[in-house]
Structure formats: C-alpha cells, structure tokens
C-alpha cells in the first residue's frame, strides 16, 4: 500500500464530505455534519473492513475465498438466532444474550470456513466453486430455517417472531453502565457520547483488528509463514513449514472475522434478520481487499471510501430540499444510491493502477 493510493482515498473521502457540507452547511454547522458523516462512514465500513480482513487472511495463505458473503449471511442469522434463544427461551439478560449471539456468529463463520478449507485444501476443489457452494448454502440454509422456525404454523416460535434482546450498546452507554458501579469515571461517558468515537463494539473491534492483523501479518512468525505459504508453498515446505496446517488455520481465522462481520448486521445494526440482508457486502469487501493490495490498512482505507459514499447517500436524502437546482440530478435517490457501486467499479478498473495478489493465491498445494 503506497502513499499514492492512500492520498487518492483521502481525496475521495474529502470530496464526498465536501459535497454534503456544501449542500447542508447553511442549515447545520459543518462540524456536526462532518462528525455525523464520519460516524456513519465508520459504522457502514465495519462489515466491509472485517470482510476484507477475512479475505486477507485467506488469500495471504493462498486460498481464495469468495464465500465471505455467505459466511457473513449465515453468521448474521445464527448469531441473531442464538441471541433470541438465549433471551426468550433461556431467559438470560439482554447483555449476555447479545454477547452469546456475537460468539455464535463468530463460530458460524469459523465452521463455514472450515467447510471451505476442507473442500479447497484437503479435496483441492476449485476454490471459486467452493466459495460459491458456501454462498448458495448460506442463502438456502438461512432462508429455509428463517421460514421454518418463525413463520411456519407448527414452528418452534409458532408463527411469532419473538423480540430480539435489542442491540449492542454504543461505547458511551456501555461506559455509563459500567461506571454506575465504579467511582471516578463519571466524566468519561459524556466525553465520548455524541462524537464520532461513540461507536458500537463490533465497529470498534474492526478498527482494532485492522491494527492487530497488520502486526500479525508483517511482524510475527505466524504472519511470515502465512505469507510464505501464499506466495510459494513449496519453498515453505522445504524449510519445514506445514503448508496445509497454516492454510487451514488462516482460512478458519478468516471465517471467524467474516462471522464477526455477520454479527454487525443483526446484533449491532438492526435487531432482526431478513433473507439476503448482507446484500453483496462480502463481495464489496473483496473489492476493498484487492484495492488495498491485500494489506489491512489499505483494505480499511478502501472500506472507508465505500462507507463514506454510503454516508453521502444517507445525508443527501436528509438535505434533499436544499440541493441547488444546478445539481438537481442528486435529488434522484437512485443516483446517490448507485454511488458506492460506481465507485467500486471506477476504483477497480484501474484508477489506482496494478495490484499484486499473493503468487500462489487460489492454487492447491501438491507435494
């Protein structure tokens, strides 16, 4: 990830923010607009960031994973299901139910990834096909179970969708709860509340995980071996590295990250599940990974661009009335709605130049 790319992304984000400030700046203070747009950007970028990290761990080890979308969807469903079960049947508190929901989502992602690893590493199935299997399986399983469990007459929940235990709280709420018992941190929640720092746990962990992933990949033994296995597995083998083991573990780590991204949808963003609710985020995450040249920070930056264009979309709807006549085309919501996708295409079709995937990406290892 070079500076050219980062500055390119910086400029795009500033442009996107600039448009909204220009339009809405007279009604609301620009500072507030920027702060709220940043908050939206970070939040929307969360599943993309985690999805891209998932792809990075898989592909750096040489396994192409286009099943991230499916892993996210399945994790969103099972995470949500687990939290409902815990809350309405076992009657745990919302906090515990939600936490278990997140863990269940991570576990689901890991298990789906294990299937992908099994297909592509042990059976050397074409990895694109393996990923497609995961995607179709996830759509089928979640759609079917969703119907059977909640909407069928004879189903467990008897045709009623029980209330979800709610959503994960923002950082300031969580701090307030935590501080209510303790002394001396009273000022902290109010300091955080209402600023861009007031994000929810999955969003915050996504940012932390970018830093952790970067450290692990480039500064630890595990990272060195992972990259070696993805670049030249035979070379790794000749210095005594177990290629299959390294690949398996990385694919499962990737799946768990995709699982956490899934938790974002049903436990952090909205308290319900809808079929196909990941809506292509897993694929945009792959685009972010490629744009970021398979580096965590690069992928994060790309995810932020997509987040920012979503933020633009949301804010433009809000300021629709004050869009100047000369820019009337922006009043069409579909124009703005297309922005993230058009940006994806523009960025990927070479505005940014060549990216280099790991040399052995997608190739099964034969001794």
């Amino acid at each position, binding site marked *: 990830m070079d500076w050219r790319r980062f500055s390119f992304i910086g400029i795009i984000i500033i442009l996107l923010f600039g448009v909204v400030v220009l339009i809405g700046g007279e009604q609301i203070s620009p500072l507030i607009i920027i702060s709220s747009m940043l908050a939206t950007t970070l939040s929307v970028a969360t599943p993309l960031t985690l999805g891209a990290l998932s792809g990075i761990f898989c592909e750096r080890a040489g396994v192409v994973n286009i099943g991230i979308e499916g892993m996210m969807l399945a994790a969103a469903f099972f995470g949500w299901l687990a939290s409902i079960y815990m809350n309405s049947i076992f009657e745990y508190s919302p906090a515990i139910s939600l936490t278990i929901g997140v863990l269940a989502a991570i576990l689901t992602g890991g298990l789906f990834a294990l299937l992908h690893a099994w297909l592509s590493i042990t059976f050397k199935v074409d990895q694109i096909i393996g990923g497609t299997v995961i995607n179709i399986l996830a759509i089928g399983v979640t759609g079917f179970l969703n119907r059977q469990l909640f909407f069928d007459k004879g189903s467990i929940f008897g045709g009623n969708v029980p209330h979800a235990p709610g959503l994960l709280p923002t950082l300031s709420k969580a701090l307030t709860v935590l501080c209510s018992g303790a002394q001396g941190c009273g000022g902290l929640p109010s300091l955080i509340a209402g600023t861009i720092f007031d994000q929810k746990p999955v969003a915050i962990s996504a940012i932390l995980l970018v830093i952790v992933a970067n450290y692990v990949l480039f500064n*630890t033994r595990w990272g*060195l071996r992972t990259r070696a296995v993805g670049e030249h597995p035979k070379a790794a083998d*000749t*210095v005594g590295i177990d290629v299959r083991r390294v690949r398996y573990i990385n694919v499962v780590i990737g799946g768990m990250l995709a699982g956490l991204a899934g938790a974002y949808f049903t436990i952090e963003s909205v308290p319900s599940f809808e079929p196909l609710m990941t809506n292509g985020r897993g694929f945009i995450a792959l685009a972010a990974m490629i744009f970021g040249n398979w580096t965590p920070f690069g992928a994060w930056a790309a995810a932020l661009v997509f987040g920012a264009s979503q933020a633009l979309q949301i804010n433009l709807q809000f300021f629709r009335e004050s869009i100047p006549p000369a820019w009337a085309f922006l009043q069409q919501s579909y124009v703005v709605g297309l922005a993230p996708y058009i940006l994806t295409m523009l960025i990927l079709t070479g505005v940014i130049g060549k990216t280099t995937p790991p040399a052995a990406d997608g190739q099964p290892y034969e001794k």
Partner: protein
Amino acid sequence: MAEKSLTLEMRGITKNFPGVLANDQVDFDLREGEIHALLGENGAGKSTLMNILYGLYQAEAGEIKIGTEALHLDSPRDAIRHGIGMVHQHFMLIPVFSVTENIMLGAETDHRAAPNDSPLVRLDRREVARRVQQLSQEYGLEVDPKAIVGDLPVGVQQRVEIVKALYRQARILILDEPTAVLTPQEADDLFRIVHKLTQRGVSVIFITHKLKEVLAIADRITVMRGGKVVGTTTPQETNENQLAAMMVGREVILKVEKSPAHPTSQVLEVDHLHVRDVRGLEAVRGISFNVRAGEILGIAGVQGNGQTELVEALTGLRRCESGTIKLQNHDLTGKTPRAFTETGLAHIPEDRQRHGLVLSYTIADNLVLCDYYKPPFGLRGVIQQQSLDSHARQLIQDFDIRTPSPYIATGKLSGGNQQKVIVARELSRPVQLVIANQPTRGLDVGSIEYIHKEIIAMRDRGVAVLLVSAELDEIMSLADRIAVIYHGQLVTTVNTTAVTREQLGLWMAGAQPETTA
C-alpha cells in the same frame, strides 16, 4: 593425505513412483569436506535420491546414516536438524520477501539462545540481518540482507540459498543442477564459493549432467542411470567420453562431426535493426548481419544482451523500431509470424514449454501448429484427422520421438522428447532458414547429440542456420561463423576456426576487438 572420514552413508535406497522405479538399491556416501558429484541424465534418479536425503520423499527401503546415527527423515525439518541443506534447481525463495525474511523463514527464532515456539513471536529482522551479514563475510558470499529477492540476479539468489542453508548450520550441502541457470562467470564464482565451503568442513553433493564441470570441481563422481548407480570414480581416473558412456549406457560422440561449410546465396539479411524489450528499453541497438545458405551463424553472448529480442524480431513476434529484415529477398519487416513461416522460416524457440508447444495438446496437434490451415491438414476450415494421424506417425518415426502414442498430451513427454516434437515440426517443413535459440538448454547428453546432428544435417542440405546460444561450447562446435553480441550490438563476426574460447569470452564480456577482421 589420509582418507577423510565418512559423514553420510546411504545404503540400498529404493523408491517407487507409480510406474517408475526411481531409485533401485542405491548406495551413496559422502566424506567430510569433499565435493561428491552425482552425475546422470534427466530422469536418472539423482533428484529423487537427494529429495529422499532432504526428507521431501520417503524411501521404501534402505537406510541413511550420519556418522553412526541412523536417520529417520520424515520431512525437511528432520533433515535440517541433522545439518543437511539443499539448494534446489528451481530456487525455493519467495521473490517478494527480503533476503533476511527468506533466510529466517522456518527458523525465525533460531538466533536466540532459547528458541521461542509461540506463533506470535515478533520477528527480529535486524538481528537476523546482522547474522546474515556475518555469514556472508565469513564465506565470501556477498548478499545484501535488505534486498528484495525478486530484484536480484539468479547468481545472487543462489548465494542467498546457500546462506540460507549455512544459517541453519548445514554440514552437508546438496546443490541440485546449480549451474543450469548461471552464466559462465557466475558459475566460476560458484565454484570458488564451493571450494571455500569445503575448506571449512562442509561436504557438498553436486548434482549435474554437465561433464566438464564434474571433472573440474569434483573429488569423487558417482554416475546414475535408470535409477541405479552405474559406478563411482574420480576425475583423475576418468574422462569426458567415459563419463558420457556411463551416463547414457552407450558410446556417445561428444565432438560434433562436421565437414567444412559450403555457403552459397544470402538467405537472411538484417540491416540496422533496432528493437525494444518489454519494458520499452532499447534491447537491440543497430544490428546488421547476414546468413547464407549452407552455413551456421552462431550468436554468442551472455544471456540478456538482446538475444531474446533479436530472435523475436527475426521471427515476427516483436515489432522492430527501425531497420529491415529480408528473408529470401522478401522484405518481411513488420510482417506477421505466419508471413515469416510461409517464406521459409523454422523457429526453435528459447522456451520450449511456453513458446514452442501447447503442452496440453496432443503430439499430433503440436506437429501441425504451423500448417494446420493448409491442405492436406485443413480442408475448407475442417481439420483432416487422417492426414494429421499419418503425418504424426511419420514424424514420430523419422525424428525418433519416444512416445506410446501420437495422442498423449505433449506436456507428458520428457524435455528431450518435447524438443524433438518442435524440431520435427519445424525441420520437416520446406524451409530455407532455421533460427534456433538455445536449442539444447536443459537437455540430456543423448538429446543434445541428436539435436546437434539435425542442425548440421539441415546446413548440409543447403539451409541457412542462425544459432543463438549461451553455451560457448555449443557455438564453438556447431557454428561456421560466430557473431558476438554485447549490450544489443554485435561486437564482431569471426570465422570459428580463427578464434579461441578465451578470446570469445573476452568479447562476450564487452572487450573491443583490436583489429577489424
């Protein structure tokens, strides 16, 4: 001098691959500080034996001992632990990693007093780089620890591989075909390094099929053929002809027999040719020469001096910046490769697998790649299978291509037989000019002998031949005239009889001829 002690002993090693007995009761031993050459043709079982020693393959029978300790080598990790290091023919380096990262890979904390097994242990690149520097000074292996391996020339990459083995404290170093990718100068450097290693007690196994090298460097020579050891000897007791006979199993004519050339009319005329390489840099800088019917013009030069681009331009594969190419008095500058072939060009390309053959096609299909569209092979756009079949059977017989059937994928053949398919396709057509670029690279003695004979036979039939080769011996023994290429220009053109090997070597390194001959 007293007999040096044995460090390694391999007894009765047997290894089966489906359909092939790759190693059959092989015995091999190695003494401390010696260079033991393992000689044999491709497929003789040398690499299999060494991969067993390095733990990559497991033998079905036999034992391996170091000193008195019997080894069980289940993986390279075990071999490394017992002080065995291997430099593979295709380097096992990661191009995007730095030298330091490549060397520490798999031995990340070995520099510490107490190695740490945690996967999340932090890489200490600076300390490893310091040790790499130390090692490289100690053994005269100059490498920059911070350099990215992919940017380094192959000769330096090979040094990185050797340092990598030494970093793991190898006492036995296996070098698999180490000179295959080196220029003559780089090979000399390697020999110096190997001698230095042995002076410090490292024992070296040197796998090769080049006879001259073996005689120059080895203390002992073991020859393998068809998975068995044919015999062990020393350079003092043997000579090239005897070694070649041991390798191939019959007498081999190493000296190419040829009568003086009788050149006639001009076939190829190249005038002030300029060609750019893939990066857009000028690779051929104003080259003019001609080749006459009935002679072989050899182009000698260290690889990367514009030979590839020159040949690509002369076969229509690469655009010329300026200058003209005339074949049989037709100006073909800027024409398509098909125009060249139809005017009478045969091309034996440098990289047979990438540019000479479609590996997944059958032999029969590969044999008509140049004229599948013409009768009798193509009629009204439909391939005539019967013509293809009889054509293939005829050529397989004429050119002695060893294959069970014309309908197996060409990629399944050995390198020598693949090259024969190309030679058969190109030389069986009515041609006036043969351009052969590195026609024997990577082939075994038997195949080399065969290809050389075919090239001479073409010349004697009145065909013009342009031979490009980095092997000075090949040029000296085949060419009638020799042009030396350096930095995209021809230094000089001389008659083969009027020049020495040493003189050519100097010109190849950029020296200017004193007189204009």
